[in-house]
């Protein structure tokens, strides 16, 4: 699965994107966050306040309970500020 980061999440994590093979026990967005934050301090720091983070799955807004699959594109970012 492809994971993208934007705005200050990208800066805190130090990555624009990363490719991972979906671990078996990762079924939802919530599971993915747990997986990522357990492996990396930077991710743990970036995801410390989930209220300030939005997520999309395949370019649609999603939430923590959204199911994810191997071929999905998942993005994490703060609330948008365009316009």
């Amino acid at each position, binding site marked *: 699965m492809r994971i993208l980061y934007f705005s200050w999440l990208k800066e805190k994590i130090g990555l624009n994107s990363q490719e991972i093979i979906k671990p078996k026990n990762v079924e939802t967005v919530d599971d993915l966050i747990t997986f990522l934050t357990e492996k990396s301090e930077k991710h743990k720091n970036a995801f410390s306040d989930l209220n300030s983070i939005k997520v999309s799955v395949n370019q649609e807004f999603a939430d923590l309970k959204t199911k994810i699959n191997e071929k999905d594109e998942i993005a994490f*970012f*703060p609330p948008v*500020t365009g316009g």
Partner: protein
Amino acid sequence: MIVKVQEKDFIAEDEIQKLKNNCMETPGAINSFIGYVRNFSNNKKLTSLTIEHYAGMTEKMLLEISAKASQKWPLLGTLIIHRYGKLNIGDQIVLAASASLHRNAAFESTQFIMDYLKTQAPFWKSEEINNQNKWVLSRKEDEQALKKWGD
């Protein structure tokens, strides 16, 4: 429905002319909104503004918003152009416009498009103040603005 996400500037006159020419019938009304880079942010003087976006999702969301507006009002056409990259004070950021037979649909739908764009289109602004770049925080007012549409 015209949607463009681009780094370069745009000429609103030309884009509105294209919107008008694309209408199936001569529109009686076109409302348009242009957002510019302001020179102050919370009383601090800005030097520049940089806009990041999620290429792909941005265009998709802007098309979704345009489609929602076209379902809600009898429109002859819509237009959204949003820039990304580094912008200077006074630069154009966004142009949203709607064409319709009567003025009310054009006014309301353009405002609707901007309200949804502000909260749903994946753009992030970073302000340069005193040689430091700082990510802009989202505003509660923008979330609340959606309530008037009762969706």
